[in-house]
């Protein structure tokens, strides 16, 4: 017997989700009647829906509440993540317009799958019970599995899809099993209820601990933390480049949204159980990611390992915990979206059909042939490296600052040494572009305006959010606190400066 009065159906806050879902289906339906060569219109349609959703998501800021019988959380936390995801999606669509043309991708499938995965991501960001998180994760993942294999004539793409699918399905199994065990231990799947239940003897309940461990593995796979990162380089290399970018940014943001809400916000009381493990995973992720990035000669693989390393930096703050760390992670992900998508957009611009142009050696002499493109790439790479005043630096600064304030100095030292080591591989691309001659990308294809726009937007974000971080950082901090219970916010603000 369902008591309908408990299910308060608030439509406005979920409107962004509705818009994206509708658009995905419309694109698919309209797409049946559109040739593959003329997929641009579908792309613009997708972009329009994303922009509408973006505007609607802005409206959620500052609201608080729970809808759909506790399944959906309406708070600034969701809004901030939705915003980051939608920005990532918009930039991905902008760079796809060029790429889909060049590689003759089937537009209907491509854009509708992209929108479906965005839907899954947004669902993960707004979910407030474990099952909805799972549904979001699956919606996102299934769409991305297919997208990774969309270059049907390229065996690397098929390999990527199969690998991603098998390992992804495997990891989802872990997550689901973890959810089941936690349900067994606490008797609920609602995050808030779990949070309230985590007291006293339950904290050392083996069922709960096992469940936590399994969920950690599940999320670890999705954010590509070491030792659950094996799939990343192959998948990133084989997938169509805009999809690689989308995986490196969108999937990561969404996975961290779930990770953050489950572990930092709601399982905070049980942090003693997972802090040490997380410490080790974080240190490993940074170190392995950076070390392996150094030896890469393919730029997509290099960026894949760099993405692993960046997940490691974020995990530093996740290990530390606390509202300051939460705000720092939100800010970092926003900045990371602009910077990393920008770098990938440049890769898309230079890539040719048949996978030519994705070696770092191909970037030789780019600064003399295409000075603006080279300058943009240099700025994105320097931001990833963490050079002030770019957003990559400020984000890292916030992450490490939060960790130091919680006493994790050792982990931060590992983090900064890794940052210094990363100079080697980020600068190797800069070296190729500015300090070496040759490279075989002699014929210059004019980049389409959409792609140039994507790079320009990413560039503006990278510079602007870095130079004047205050409003974004404040918004991120408030967003994080909006996900916490009122008592906790009170306790935290009493402690904070």
């Amino acid at each position, binding site marked *: 017997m369902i008591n309908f009065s408990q299910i308060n159906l608030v439509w406005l806050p979920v409107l962004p989700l509705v818009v994206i879902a509708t658009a995905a289906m419309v694109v698919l339906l309209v797409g049946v009647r559109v040739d593959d060569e003329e997929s641009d219109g579908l792309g613009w349609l997708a972009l329009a829906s994303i922009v509408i959703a973006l505007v609607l998501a802005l409206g959620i800021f500052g609201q608080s509440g729970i809808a759909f019988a506790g399944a959906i959380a309406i708070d600034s936390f969701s809004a901030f993540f939705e915003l980051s995801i939608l920005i990532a999606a918009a930039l991905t669509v902008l760079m796809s317009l060029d790429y889909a043309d060049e590689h003759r991708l089937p537009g209907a499938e491509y854009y509708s799958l992209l929108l479906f995965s965005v839907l899954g991501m947004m669902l993960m960001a707004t979910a407030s019970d474990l099952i909805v998180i799972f549904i979001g994760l699956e919606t996102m993942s299934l769409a991305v599995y297919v997208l990774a294999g969309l270059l049907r004539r390229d065996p690397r793409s098929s390999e990527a899809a199969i690998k991603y699918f098998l390992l992804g399905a495997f990891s989802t199994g872990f997550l689901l099993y973890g959810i089941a065990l936690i349900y067994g231990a606490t008797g609920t799947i609602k995050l808030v209820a779990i949070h309230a239940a985590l007291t006293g003897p339950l904290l050392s309940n083996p069922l709960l601990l096992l469940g936590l461990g399994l969920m950690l593995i599940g999320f670890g796979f999705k954010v590509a933390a070491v030792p659950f990162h094996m799939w990343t380089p192959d998948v990133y290399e084989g997938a169509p480049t805009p999809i690689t970018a989308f995986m490196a940014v969108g999937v990561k943001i969404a996975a961290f949204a779930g990770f953050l809400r489950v572990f930092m916000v709601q399982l905070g009381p049980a942090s003693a159980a997972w802090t040490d493990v997380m410490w080790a995973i974080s240190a490993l992720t940074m170190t392995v990611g950076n070390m392996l990035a150094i030896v890469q000669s393919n730029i997509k693989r290099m960026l894949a390992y760099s993405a692993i390393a960046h997940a490691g930096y974020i995990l530093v703050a996740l290990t530390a915990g606390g509202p300051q760390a939460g705000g720092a992670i939100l800010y970092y992900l926003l900045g990371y979206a602009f910077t990393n998508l920008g770098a990938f957009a440049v890769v898309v611009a230079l890539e040719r059909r048949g996978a030519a142009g994705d070696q770092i050696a191909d970037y030789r002499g780019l600064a003399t042939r295409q000075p603006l493109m080279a300058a943009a790439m240099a700025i994105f790479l320097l931001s990833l490296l963490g050079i*002030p005043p770019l957003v990559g630096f400020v984000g890292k600064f916030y992450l490490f*600052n939060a960790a130091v*304030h919680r006493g994790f*100095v050792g982990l931060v*030292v590992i983090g*900064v040494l890794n940052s210094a080591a990363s100079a*080697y591989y980020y600068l190797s691309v800069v070296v190729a572009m500015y*300090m070496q001659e040759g490279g075989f990308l002699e014929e210059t294809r004019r980049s389409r305006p959409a792609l140039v726009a994507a790079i320009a937007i990413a560039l503006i974000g990278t510079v602007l959010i870095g130079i004047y971080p*205050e409003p974004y950082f404040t918004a991120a901090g408030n967003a994080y606190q909006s996900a916490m219970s009122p008592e906790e916010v009170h306790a935290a603000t009493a402690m904070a400066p």
Partner: protein
Amino acid sequence: MLTAIIFLPLLGALLIMMQSDERTVWNAAFVFSLVPLGLSFYMLWQFRAGEAGYQFVEQYPWIPSLGISYHLGVDGISLFLVVLTTLLITISLFYSAGGDIEERAREFCFFVLVLETGLLGALLAVDLFLFYVFWEVMLIPMYFLIGIWGHGERIYAALKFVVFTMVGSLLMLVAILCLVFSARQHLEHITFDLPMLYQVPLSTTEARWLFAAFALAFAIKVPMWPVHTWLPDAHTNAPTAGSVILAGIMLKMGTYGFLRFAIPLFPEVAVEAIPLFMALAVIGIIYGALVAMMQPDLKRLVAYSSVSHLGFVMLGIFAFNIQGIDGAVYQMLNHGISTGGLFLLVGMIYLRRHTREISEFGGLWKSVPIYAGIFMVVMLSSIGLPGLNGFVGEFLIMLGTFLRLKLAAVFAVTGVILGALYMLWTYERVQFGPITKAVNETIADLNGREIASMVPLIALMLLMGFFPRPLISRIEPSAARLLERVNVAEARLDERRHRAALAATAPRGLDSRILKVAAAK
């Protein structure tokens, strides 16, 4: 005012990127370096001598949620370094336009001007976060200058430079964060403002670790022996203007960092570390001089002489008396002027002969007399001949060192002698004797632009050699204020040591009463 000095070069850099004509680019870059030079002279003129605190202060909130503000100021320690920076940048650009840089002039000017912004910002920032931002900003343009316009192993040298500096500065970043965290606990609010952070009481262990991190970052930049290995590579392979800026200004960032941050933030640890730093400085002085003597390459020789000269500066700083610190700041300026001059001269001869091997030269006095004459003045200034600027700084440093630790002064004096030896010997091999290589007979003497680049430096050498007073009187109040902090710390440290010694020697049972009496005294 200070904002204008810092950001005009950046504005110029951005405007230049929209120009395509090479001539316009050089002229515009020159103008955009000239305006900050003029402003810095105006600042010098307006600076109130005899005051220790910051002047021309600007402060606006930047990231209030973390207590970070855009806080600038200039005092006696940074005042002349600012002028030196604007001057050397202007000279570098002026000289480079004369044919030293032929490719990608626009990018070259862009990076030099961005570098100027970074350098000036780091000198004028009074907020730790702001300082760190500028400190890192100056790294990248220098990386490009070495990597694109350098010679030989330029890419390796550039990367080594970046990685060395980054390791040091990132560990310093962690130390900054730890310091701010302690500040938050003691001051009850979070701040990155330097004067506020001076007030934070730290435990001894904490202070030692933090000092170690700061000192490492700055020691790499100075560079002190044994973390100097990036310097010869970077210098030798950099273009002339790069070497001038690197030696003339960037190395001073290390010593300046000690004076502004490492020492006043952790005065007690700094006092404890006197023997260590004096030893490292003396090793650097003698090692640098010996290695310089053995170099077959002129530029490498000058590079190693920098290791030796910066050793003197460190010695003066860690003497912790007014002579030592005055001398150290003075010597920082001297080194910028004379070594900057030497690098320019080496660049000029390289442009003519495309070699820097000392054995390739000989008898240049006959074919290029103006060059040889200017070289002599600059060399004598570097040696520290009385009447030229180098003497004043070296003398003050030796005096200060002697007052602090006689043994260090004794060893350092051998460095002075060795310095004279290798410079004079080099001069003899390059300029005197018969012309052994036929090509050397026909090389052209300095042209107008080259002479004009050297004239301001020579003038300063004479001026600062004969009239040190106007400079010292502006440096001294700030140096004295720094010293005040150090002396208080030293007294505290002595007292603690004294008590510890008493506790160790006093018989058990009696000690508590004796300690109380001792403490009362």
